[in-house]
């Protein structure tokens, strides 16, 4: 389904990269390991990128939470951010749809491009950004309303037509339809945790975003619900680009196409701590043959 909102064409630089290295696109071949993140101009995957991050630093009240992250996030793939707690992976994720704007003291430096447009440009409207880049949170957060109204809320406030159809399609898309079709008017709080989280995913799908950000979506769920959501994610990437933050390394290994590993750094006096990107690569490589020994220590369970 194409979005009817007219917009800017894809940025020049992006097209050039595509032309130069277009044939190298693919996951299992032509892997170039970046030395430290993916620097500008080094684009090993050459697929179409959704996000391009350049030296992104996020601070809260002047204290950096994550520093100098540069990475490109491809379209229609699942990109995982892993790392120990406090490494700023959730902070980074929340920058991608400007949820950090809700915290008055948060500040983003560097550049985050979304299809070549600066996400933090002066004319950019955060509401418009969030319409295109949805988010699923750590703890399922259904609205205190009926199942139907939970999904219908988005289409209604955005003025999208065919609310009934959208609700039904979203619930089917999230593999929830068969479980709830007879109780659409029941309160969403009566659902199980796993169902609530799939409801939240369905709710996001119903407004037809391009990207879905997921902030540890399974951390509050049991293994069976987690499995269902992972299956769902694999199907969703056909039509959405997904960025997922996870604590669970097996989960990153199972679902993601690419994985970024972040660590916590302390300054000499151990007073300030911030996150840094260590390595960003095809998932298989991160887990089998990482370039950085710190990544290896983390994924093999030596630290973390």
């Amino acid at each position, binding site marked *: *389904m*194409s*979005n009817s*909102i*007219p*917009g*800017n*064409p*894809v940025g020049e630089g992006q097209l050039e990269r595509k032309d130069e290295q277009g044939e190298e696109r693919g996951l299992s071949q032509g892997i170039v390991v970046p030395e430290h993140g993916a620097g500008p101009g080094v684009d090993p995957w050459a697929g*179409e990128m959704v996000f391009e991050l350049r030296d992104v630093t996020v601070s809260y009240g002047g204290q950096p939470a994550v520093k100098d992250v540069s990475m490109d996030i491809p*379209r*229609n793939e699942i990109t995982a951010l892993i790392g120990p707690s406090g490494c700023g992976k959730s902070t980074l994720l929340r920058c991608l749809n400007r949820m950090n704007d809700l915290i008055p003291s948060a500040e983003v430096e560097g550049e985050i491009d*979304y*299809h*070549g*447009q600066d*996400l933090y*440009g002066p*004319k*950019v*409207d955060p*509401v*418009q*950004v969030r319409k*295109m880049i949805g988010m699923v949170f750590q703890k399922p957060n259904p609205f205190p309303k009926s199942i139907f109204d939970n999904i219908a809320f988005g289409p209604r406030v955005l003025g999208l037509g065919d609310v009934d159809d959208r609700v039904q*399609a*979203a619930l*089917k*898309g999230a*593999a929830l339809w068969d479980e709830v079709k007879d109780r659409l008017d029941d309160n969403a709080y009566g659902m199980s945790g796993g169902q609530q989280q799939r409801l939240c995913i369905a709710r996001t*799908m119903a407004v*037809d975003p*391009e990207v879905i950000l997921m902030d540890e979506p399974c951390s509050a769920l049991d293994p069976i619900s987690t499995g269902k959501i992972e299956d769902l994610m694999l*199907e*969703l990437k*056909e*039509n*959405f680009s997904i960025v997922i933050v996870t604590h669970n390394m097996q989960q990153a290994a199972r679902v993601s196409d690419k994985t970024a590993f972040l660590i916590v750094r302390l300054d000499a006096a151990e007073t300030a701590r911030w996150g840094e990107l260590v390595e960003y690569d095809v998932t298989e490589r991160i887990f089998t043959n990482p370039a950085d020994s710190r990544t290896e220590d983390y994924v093999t369970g030596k630290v973390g």
Partner: protein
Amino acid sequence: MATGDIRAFGTGGPAGRRPVPSLEAPSPRYGEKAIRGLLALCALLSVLTTTAIVVSLLLPTLDFLAEVPIGEFLFGTTWAPTFTPADFGVLPILVGTLSTSLWGMLVAVPIGLASAIFLSEYASPRTRKVIKPVLEVLAGIPTVAIGIFGLIFLSPLIEPILPFMVKVPPFSAGIAGIAIGLMIVPIIASISDDSMRSVPQGLREAAYGLGATRMKVATRVVFPAAISGIIASLVLAGSRAVGETMIVLLVAGASPNLTFDPGSSVQTMTAFIGTTATGDISTGTITYDTIFAVGALLFAITLVLNLFAIRMVRKYREVYE
């Protein structure tokens, strides 16, 4: 699950490309801004109210002070503003206010604090769940009803037993104090209970672990830990006592006597305003201005008490919440 269901969403297949939508707002959203402005105006109304209170108190007070020297007003010991020659020494009605408030606090502080300790440290959750709302409901009894209770029940009841408490029946500063005490007990009990309950359970467990008894935990651990909230409750209650009008109007009488004697009849600042401002007083007269001067003094006293209480409440919220 059929993949077709998903195809209804998203951006098309991996190779597909659509024009990148604009990130700019489709409309300037004037409505959002207008609503924000309207809501800010609502909030600003409270500042306007305060300003209006200060201005409406201050202007006539300045007129008043142009005629009565401030020293005579604050330190004079005779209050007869409607007599000729008039006396404008505010001390008798200031002391009247302090006296009724003091007797009220004397009644309410022990009862209120003990009730709070009981509710927070001794009562079972079930008892608490019943008693706390009952107290809150009783806190809503209008003060005119409490005043009537004092006038036609407490005063005749106490007079034969303790004649020194009611020297000019049925009026008495002490009886007014008891009635004020009844009014503020729920405030003290409720806020102190809240602040004692916000003391972390860990502190209690640590004390029990050292072999302390329940009484020691309540009085030596929880009570000191909750002290800023408890002080806040007492100060707020004091402020309410100072500002109470109907009870003193009904029970304390209307004689501006400079005394703390619980048995005598006194006039308080609020009672003076309440009796004097009801008549058809014309603006610009000294009597009219006097009401505002007394009001300004009352406002200043309660302002200091309220600001202090607000500070204490914030302190305990910062520590434990």
